[in-house]
């Protein structure tokens, strides 16, 4: 990948609950190129959101970032002092969340919540910040900007609030936007509009986006690169077209097979059997082996290494060990 804006190396975030350790993010590495949209996909509880939150160190107790590095502009975010971290958050890297309805403070006006961010990170005074905020609201395609500025969150709809969140995120022209399932709580038409908005912003400002989702439809819509996570591990990574045309890991194949196809009647939609293992009870085996349709003997004994063959499409699966990147493995699709 060409000139990454952020490079994540061997990130480890564990949760300590009832003297058990949940390895929510275990040795995950990836990078995000400038101006590209990278999607992380996976089932609920596979560590996508924790990965996203870890990048800004927004993990709170009982979670802990144990190791790895997050390199942003040659600085390790995980080792930054508080002042630099606050300067980074919302300024160079900003974030939007899954539930727009609860992500804004109910007792402050929208305007105040945008202005607050601008005043914190720039030298603008409140009046200038207010003007800029009105501009931001217009930029995220909300009508009657002045009126929205003086509204409270409960007076707006979910879609409008997510646009407000995007406006806040854009307020300091960040170079990276982390979007943690930003469309999951919205209905489908609004979802499409928000995706278009994000893509439009990327095209305008060459901002990179890390997009977390479990929805492959959304991935197809927006992603340049895709990272597939399973049980806290990165298991496959590929450019979007590659991944959809030629998935390698059986889990990725399963995910793609479980999508309904428009115009094609199916009595029963395919689903991957079983469920995500308990992250605190993982063994030495491949975490997917008991759900895998192509499980080998070695899968039950050893977790496969993440193989990089120099191309942009890599996976962690024993089926592709020894350089056997055979196309027949995907023949079942």
């Amino acid at each position, binding site marked *: 990948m060409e000139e990454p804006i952020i490079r994540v190396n061997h990130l480890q975030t564990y949760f300590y609950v009832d003297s058990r350790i949940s390895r929510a993010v275990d040795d995950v590495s990836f990078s995000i190129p400038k101006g590209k949209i990278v999607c992380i996909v996976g089932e609920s509880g596979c560590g996508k959101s924790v990965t996203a939150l870890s990048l800004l160190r927004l993990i709170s107790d009982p979670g802990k970032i144990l190791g790895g590095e997050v390199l942003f502009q040659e600085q390790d975010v995980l080792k930054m002092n508080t002042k630099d971290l606050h300067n980074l958050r919302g300024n160079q890297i900003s974030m939007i969340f899954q539930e727009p309805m609860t992500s804004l403070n109910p007792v402050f006006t929208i305007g*105040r919540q945008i202005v607050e961010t601008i005043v914190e*990170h720039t030298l603008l005074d409140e009046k200038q910040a207010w003007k800029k905020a009105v501009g931001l609201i217009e930029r995220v395609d909300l009508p009657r900007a002045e009126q929205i500025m003086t509204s409270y969150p409960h007076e707006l709809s979910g879609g409008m609030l997510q646009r407000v969140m995007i406006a806040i995120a854009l307020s300091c022209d960040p170079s990276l936007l982390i979007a943690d399932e930003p469309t999951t709580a919205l209905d489908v038409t609004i979802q499409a509009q928000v995706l278009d908005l994000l893509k439009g912003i990327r095209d305008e400002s060459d901002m990179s986006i890390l997009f977390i989702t479990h929805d492959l439809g959304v991935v197809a819509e927006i992603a340049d690169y895709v990272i597939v996570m399973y049980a806290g591990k990165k298991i496959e990574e590929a450019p979007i077209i590659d991944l959809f045309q030629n998935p390698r890991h059986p889990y990725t194949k399963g995910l793609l097979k479980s999508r309904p196809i428009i115009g094609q009647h199916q009595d029963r939609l395919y689903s991957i059997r079983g469920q995500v293992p308990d992250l605190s009870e993982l063994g030495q085996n491949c975490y997917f082996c008991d759900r895998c349709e192509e499980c080998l003997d070695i899968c039950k004994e050893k977790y496969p290494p993440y193989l990089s063959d120099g191309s942009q499409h890599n996976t962690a699966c024993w089926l592709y060990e020894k350089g056997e990147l055979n196309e027949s493995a995907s023949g079942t699709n």
Partner: protein
Amino acid sequence: MRFIRDSGMPAENKRGVPVKKYVLKRFLQMIPILLGISLLIFFLFAMMPGDYFSSNRKLTPERLNELRALYGLNKPVIERYFIWLKNAFHGDFGFSLQHMLPVTTLINRYIWNSFIISFVALFFTWALALVIGVYSATKQYSFFDKLVTLGVFASLSVPSFFIGLMMIKFFGVDLHILPIGGMLDTGSNSVGFAYLLEVLRHMIMPVAILTILSVGSLTRYFRTGMLDVLRMDFIRTARAKGLKERTVIFRHALRNALLPAITLLAFELPGLFSGAIITEQIFGWPGIGKIQLDALNARDYPVLMTLTMFLSFLTIFGNFLADVMYAAADPRIRIAKKE
């Protein structure tokens, strides 16, 4: 910390009218409630057997009837209620035969003594609980937090009469640094600033007791409220925006955590005037708590009735204040009323 105004916001124009309407409506609602309560209180006291004269065995039945007729106690209850109500509207709440004073004069003489210690104690309770509660919430499970939790349960479980007497023994008798009771020194005739200082010195222990008694539960309340708010999504958003932790806690979290406390504060209103019976007794504080107890023993019903009515009024008025303050502090309330 920079303060951000909602500049250019036409608050009065946008929401002024519904708020005024709402306040007026809530205010008018108080009238029937108060009438209902007066009815209830009057009849409950009328139903109680006996009156001020019945415990006096020296009175002959004839004299008893004479006295009852004199004070209107022989009339039908309904009639007595309306007479009482009419007088009450004129500010006359009856006459205390026990103290030989009009009830309002009697209450006015003692209630402020109770008010002053309750008010100072309330101030300290809230200030301490707020600071300790919020701070221990931000440091959950730290050593300080555990210490606070221990202190909270200690404060909840120590009885006031015991700790009060211990304090009198320690500070008053052993160390001689604080007076052992009363509101003024015996035979004192100090005036002006000296008088004020004397009262302040006497107040220290009762106020300390009252504060210790209630600071525990309130600290716990603020700690829980703050913990709840700190878990909310918008706090994560505030952090993700790059706001300083101080701003996140004091601007974003505290404002939300304080909303439910408005109701709680309003409920403290009657407590300010009700007097602390046990504490006043221990420290010989001339407050309204003792007057109530004496009135109960002597069947001095006009005093009891007036006090009960006054406290009921304060409770209802406190509720009204809570609703108004809530509407002012929480923008979500106004919309709910509009729709």
